[in-house]
């Protein structure tokens, strides 16, 4: 085969800058082959190397007494006691889904599942926070439909329930949707398996799907802005095979539980390159692999193509010679293609052979750890100074607050997501105790009294209005949601979705949001266990709302602490925990009903938030709380309406609002740190007294009862009208 001559044009076409190429030459001590250049280009792509984000990510708090595995592995792991651990991670599949929604979303699910079972955990839940453009635009409609069926078809087939999500619609996501997928796995602590090749002589074993040309340069594709040309890059989008995904899931867990493998990693972004380099790099070893041994489904694949292919459902394991027959038995049981590619070496090199020649020889640790690191310029965006600021003295009040509430309940962002979650199997595995439709999902951990609560949240508009406060608010909201279900927040995973980081305005959003997320994590004692950064989320030069998506894990010690949002009993007192509202900044009232981004982002006091959450958990553990619901999009009005609609007995409520605030502000403000709870009326005075003692603002605002939502002097809406509005949107 003729060797390709490396020209500056070829280097540039691989997205490698002049300085990066110099660094490459230094590491190699010679000119690279084309295969080596390809390997460098994917390993140093933004997606794999985090070169523009690393500096900021280091500011996250990552340690905690329950954290067994923090960032840097395939997923984070948190100890929940009883020898049990929860493994979880969130990832994005934004760019592939923008171009090919169905396969983009499906392979996103496949990839995040592999990250979890690779660690030795059985996936027990999926969450899918999604951000779409205006649903009335045909192209967006096509994306929405494709993404939802892609998630459904993969997750349903593999048999992992999709238990929660978080869906927003905003023009800023036109053409560049955010498809974030989170997977949660359950494991025995002793099954924890890392992607680290340590023992020289051990075998490098490939299993799963054969390799084809699909997805070549997927990782570099995910590191560019979307343009018209992106649509022509469909071949960079991979095709998912959920049946193979299910088989490698079962086979991998058998390999791990029977102690057959030393290390394991899936071939995700940058395929065989990334998995082999990283395993060797982490173990301080080398690998020697022969590409002729790779199962292939296309003819005449070049070494370059095999190394860079992102064909799905492929795994790479390190197996000792003695355990190979045990591994073979498992592969044969599951009818999986498999092959020994080579072995672990001591020289620290990743050596790749093809057709009898060495086509790449690269220091494994350097390429995976010495990726370039940048410190992009940051500048406070000008838009922040020109956003209109809410003024309570002269705001556009609705003619009728009741009609405004109905209109808000019907807006796609707030409306019921039943039309989505009924397409997902959310019950399989028999753990889903609190089903989708409320805020956090609650799953039981079979064989124990424990339950976990899961929530994924981020209000991108708030982050747009104030990146730092908005970042903190995302964490606070996610924590508040699990607290409302009776869980103590334990840890987070995050998916940081931003525009092009080389633009100073965008980098400012990123940097500030990361600081805000970190501050909230420290205040709420929820360390970051891992995550993913997705940059270049722009469409024709316009960036998405900065969206640091937070996936929160909470723990419920006893089943009797599980709390849901629906009203429970007529005569119960309705109590609002949190300060009275003062602003409609950042509200859906303005965004959805007035088509306006209204500032400011409301202030968040993290100490007050922590006090509020601790107080509610204390009241729940004492058995005094009947229901709890976080106030978020749509404000107190939407929160109370949801409590009524989620009531199994169809209970309404009669609410009295504060007299000295305009009812629209009190009803539709989206200020943080507010929770609506109900309790038996005879507990109300005690709860109020204790809240005051704990420094938590508190007010009894009404009583549960009747079959309408009556807000005294404002409106009286029968539940059927609320429901009709709430269930009115679907695609």
């Amino acid at each position: 085969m003729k060797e390709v001559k490396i020209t500056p044009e070829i280097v540039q076409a691989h997205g490698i800058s002049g300085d990066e190429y110099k660094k490459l030459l230094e590491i190699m001590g010679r000119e690279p082959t084309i295969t080596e250049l390809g390997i460098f280009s994917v390993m140093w792509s933004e997606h794999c190397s985090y070169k523009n984000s690393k500096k900021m990510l280091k500011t996250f708090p990552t340690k905690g007494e329950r954290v067994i595995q923090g960032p840097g592995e395939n997923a984070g792991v948190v100890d929940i006691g009883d020898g049990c651990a929860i493994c979880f991670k969130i990832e994005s599949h934004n760019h592939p889904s923008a171009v090919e929604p169905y396969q983009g979303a499906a392979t996103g699910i496949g990839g995040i599942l592999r990250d979890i079972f690779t660690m030795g955990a059985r996936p027990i839940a999926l969450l899918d926070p999604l951000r779409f453009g205006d649903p009335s635009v045909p192209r967006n409609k096509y994306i929405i439909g494709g993404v939802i069926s892609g998630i459904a078809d993969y997750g349903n087939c593999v048999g992992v329930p999709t238990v929660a999500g978080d869906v927003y619609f905003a023009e800023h996501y036109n053409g560049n949707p955010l498809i974030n997928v989170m997977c949660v796995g359950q494991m025995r602590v002793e099954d924890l398996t890392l992607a680290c090749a340590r023992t020289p002589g051990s075998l490098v074993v490939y299993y799963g799907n054969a390799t084809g040309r699909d997805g070549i340069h997927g990782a570099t594709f995910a590191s560019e802005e979307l343009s018209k040309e992106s649509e022509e890059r469909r071949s960079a989008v991979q095709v998912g095979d959920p049946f193979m995904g299910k088989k490698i899931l079962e086979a991998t867990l058998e390999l791990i539980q029977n102690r057959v493998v030393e290390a394991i990693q899936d071939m995700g972004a940058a395929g065989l390159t990334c998995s082999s380099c990283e395993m060797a790099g982490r173990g301080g070893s080398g690998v020697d692999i022969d590409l002729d041994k790779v199962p292939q489904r296309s003819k005449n694949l070049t070494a370059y193509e095999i190394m860079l292919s992102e064909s799905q459902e492929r795994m790479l394991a390190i197996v000792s010679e003695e355990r190979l027959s045990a591994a073979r038995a498992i592969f044969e049981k599951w009818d999986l293609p498999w092959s020994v590619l080579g072995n672990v070496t001591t020289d620290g090199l990743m050596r790749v052979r093809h057709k009898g020649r060495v086509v790449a020889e690269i220091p494994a640790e350097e390429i995976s750890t010495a990726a370039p690191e940048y410190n992009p310029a940051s500048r406070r965006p000008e838009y922040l100074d020109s956003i209109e600021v809410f003024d309570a003295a002269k705001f556009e009040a609705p003619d009728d607050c009741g009609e405004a509430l109905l209109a808000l309940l019907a807006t796609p962002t707030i409306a019921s997501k039943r039309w989505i979650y009924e397409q997902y199997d959310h019950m399989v595995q028999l753990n889903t105790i609190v089903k989708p439709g409320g805020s956090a999902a609650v799953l039981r951990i079979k064989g124990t009294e424990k339950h976990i609560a899961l929530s994924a949240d981020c209000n991108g508009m708030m982050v747009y209005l104030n990146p730092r406060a908005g970042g903190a608010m995302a964490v606070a909201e996610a924590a508040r949601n699990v607290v409302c279900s009776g869980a103590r927040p334990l840890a987070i995973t995050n998916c940081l979705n931003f525009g092009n980081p080389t633009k100073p305005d965008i980098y400012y959003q990123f940097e500030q949001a990361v600081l805000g997320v970190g501050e909230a994590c420290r205040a709420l004692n929820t360390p970051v266990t891992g995550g993913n950064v997705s940059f270049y989320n722009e469409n024709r030069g316009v960036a998405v709302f900065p969206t640091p998506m937070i996936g929160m894990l909470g723990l419920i010690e006893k089943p009797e602490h599980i709390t849901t949002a629906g009203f429970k009993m007529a005569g119960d007192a309705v109590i609002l925990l949190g300060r009275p509202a003062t602003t409609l900044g950042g509200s859906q009232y303005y965004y959805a009903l007035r088509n306006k981004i209204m500032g400011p982002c409301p202030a968040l006091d993290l100490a007050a938030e922590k006090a509020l959450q601790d107080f509610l958990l204390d009241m729940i553990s004492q058995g005094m709380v009947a229901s709890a619901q976080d106030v978020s999009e749509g404000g107190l009005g939407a929160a109370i309406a949801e409590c009524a609609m989620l009531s199994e007995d169809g209970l309404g409520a009669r609410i009295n609002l504060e007299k000295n605030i305009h009812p629209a502000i009190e009803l539709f403000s989206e200020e943080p740190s507010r929770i609506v709870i109900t309790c038996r009326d005879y507990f109300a005075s005690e709860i109020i007294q204790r809240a005051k003692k704990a420094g938590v603002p508190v007010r009894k605002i009404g009583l549960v009862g009747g079959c309408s939502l009556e807000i005294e002097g404002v409106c009286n809406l029968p539940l059927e009208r609320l429901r009709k509005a709430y269930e009115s949107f679907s695609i």
Partner: protein
Amino acid sequence: MKFGVVIFPGSNCDQDCIHVLRNVLGCPVKELWHKERDLQGCECIVLPGGFSYGDYLRTGAIARFSPIMESVASHAAAGRPVIGICNGFQILCEAGILPGALIRNQSLRFICKPVHLSVENSRTIFTRFEKKTLAIPIAHGEGNYFIHADGLKRLKENVQIVFRYCDKNGKAAADANPNGSLENIAGIINERGNVLGMMPHPERCSELALGGEDGLNIFKSIIQDGAR
């Protein structure tokens, strides 16, 4: 009663069925791998839900050729109990052990939600219980039951229709039909009455913690019949 739960590659409700039979009902349960032929002395065979062979080609179309299916067919032919749930029902139809076919839902979408079933025949070994309306969830993309006119006539003559989708008052109305099934059919038995196929998942509502126990009625009925 000793149950055998068949596991095909792609089955994903196998462990759920095993959990209910073993941990909730206290029955001995064997896992039966699709490549085997030995039913290991199991008295009742369960074909669980899921996506055997990824539902590729057609739901159940490949699984029916698994070696274990020959033994399941003989077990059924000998008059011993078999229950196919969701994908299991689809496999039984593909194998010709039950009549009819399950085609794509009318909406062309997967649907996962609680539904109500009316018990149309209380004299089967699967339905000897008081309750006439059950709340049991469905989760399928291809649960739309179809059979030609002659076949439907025979089903009716032999009282083979066991469950119909209905509203909460037990009425099998058109708007209570979630997937377009002919005459709201949700579950049928074979002529001999020892093989049940049903799309809804009784194992998903066999514990109060999961929101209901109506599914237990079906399993308990099988167990009681075995004890007689």
